[in-house]
């Protein structure tokens, strides 16, 4: 059996990769993908802890399924926003959308 620390390391790495991507990339689609990475790292945590701490229960798995579903919905909304942004700004560069500055 893989020790839990490995899995936690994996999920942490995944989370910070996602965070790094979110903070550095300027393309909105890439940023969205980075968010998905962070969400998935959370999913991994849920499943792993469920498996190792409460083997008889399925709560963590349910949470993962919920998160996946919500992430899908969120992706749909985000893409709709991105499309609208593209229509109005002719670009999907995140820095272009700075009307709320100051």
């Amino acid at each position, binding site marked *: 059996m893989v020790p839990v620390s490995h899995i936690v390391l994996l999920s942490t790495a995944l989370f910070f990769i996602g*965070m790094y991507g*979110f*903070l550095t990339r300027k393309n909105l689609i890439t*940023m969205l993908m980075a968010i998905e990475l962070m969400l998935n790292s959370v999913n991994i945590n849920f499943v792993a802890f469920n498996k190792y701490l409460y083997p008889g229960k399925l709560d963590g798995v349910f949470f993962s399924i919920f998160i996946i579903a919500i992430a899908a919905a969120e992706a749909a909304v985000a893409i709709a926003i991105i499309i609208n942004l593209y229509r109005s700004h002719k670009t999907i560069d*995140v820095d272009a959308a700075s009307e709320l*500055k100051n």
Partner: protein
Amino acid sequence: MNGYEHTVWILLLPLIGFVLLGLFGKKYFNKSAGIIGTALLTISAALALLTAYQYFFVNGLMNGVYPKVQALKFTWLMFSPGLSIDMGIMLDPISVMMLVVVTFVSLMVHIFSLGYMKGEERFATYYAFLGLFTFSMLALVVSSNLFQMYMFWELVGVSSYLLIGFYFQKPSAVAASKKAFIVTRFADLGFLIGILILAYYGRSLDFNTIIQTLTAQQSQGYLAAVSASFLGVSALTWGLTLVFMGGAGKSAMFPLHVWLPDAMEGPTPVSALIHAATMVVAGVYLVARLFPLFALNGASLTIVLTVGLFSALLAAVIACTQTDIKRVLAYSTMSQIGFMMFALGVSGYSGEAGLGYTASMFHLFTHAFFKSLLFLCAGAVIHLVHSNEMKDMGGLRKYMPVTNIAFLVACLAIAGIPPFAGFFSKEEILLASYNKDMLVYIVALLTSGLTAFYMFRLYFSIFFRKAAPDIHGHQGEGPFSMKLPLIILTICAIGAGFIPFGKFVSADGKPLETHFHLMFSVLPVIVALTGIAIAWWMYKKESGKVESVARSMIGLYSASKNKFYVDELYLFITKNIIFKWIGRPAAWLDRKVVDGSMNEIANGTLEVSKSIRGMQSGKVQRYALYFFAGIAFLLIAFIYIWK
């Protein structure tokens, strides 16, 4: 049901007039406002006369006294079952008398104003204000409790303010109206505290209950009021003195008289109504209303006596040197009210000793007629010459025969020449003070001599002194509506003295037989005639006599001319003491501490916001970074600091 239900209409009709003319007058009845107001008041006056007839002659005495009738009573504000404020109409001899006086004089003024105020742009507003004043004054006199009286007391103050400042384009009128309001308001502060003291110890606001409680020597309230003391003076004396302070403010008694001469900035008929016959006697009325309490409390009665006597003398001296005819009349009013006040001061409660009370009310009654007559005559004169100054007048008897006669009669009445109205009432006052104290009598006699002098100085200056001036295109005495009130009031000024007043009004409610002492009245009449003779000698013809007399008593003359510097004293106190030592520090505290702390909070918020404004960069990734940093901070904090 007590047969007096119609009295409520005496009050309501002027109020209806006020509401109607106040709301719609300017638009719909600007021409007919005078007729509407006068018609309503005619009905009101007729009802008042009917009430007086019914009260004194139909229902009459009950067990030897005139009863106090509650014509109307309802609870206005109910705070708790034990504490409520009532509204009501109480009829007793003095309130019935005042109903007649107020409605009658008000009616005369309404009629007079038809001519006097004709062509005025705010004609309807003027009549609306007159209606408001009449209503409030009537409600004041019929009040059944102290609080109702206080309320309408303030309301007459407001209407007086509105009418003094009627010509609001004139800065002096605005200043005068403010002065009148502030001075009387200051006095009313004392009145309010006095009411609270009396109501606290009397366990009620109702006049009858208070008087009953505080005159019963064994009652708990009386004992508490007498034993509680502040600065060595009992609570009862404080209460009565403070109530008297309110009355002194309204009645222009020294030292709160400064507003009355300035109040002459208002239209002259208004001065006749408010500042001669009705509102200014409210203070006398108030003392008379609470007289059973005053009569048992020697200290406060002495204050009433002293203040009244001093004001009477002071005002008479000042009146001798003023040149504005309305101001002379104003000081004369103050002097006469002083007479009424000290007449109350020398009075006792029952029987013969109560003569002062009867005399005071009698003088109030007759004074209302001849003083409003004097003012209306002055109004007619001013209407003709368009000036208040004596030097612009003289020899006017050729142009205004009716006014001349009316003015002469009123002057004779106020001077106390028989058989005119003032003679009888003044005689009673002098007799009452003679019975009480020789010094009071001498001062009163001197004052009545001065009264005769300054009134005839006024008379000769207006109607004689010079040859008739050449006035082109003058309107003479004005229309009939201005002459009619003069004629009616002249008749009253002649006849009012013959009413056997003591039969109707006395301190204890029992009819008082007033005796006429022929020998006693010789001296006052001689004094008055002397005053008239001096005035005739000095003012009949233009001559140097006035100047030489003025020069011979230089100090007194200039002091009197400058009203004994009371105004200057007030100015000094307010400017150099109150404004400088109280007003300025308070303003500083307000600006620097109260406002300052608020301003600093706002400034601080502004500064902090400016410095962190840069964080609002509009860049999503920057926000995300803050967010992550915040989470990281909280994480570390939770793990290592707030474990």
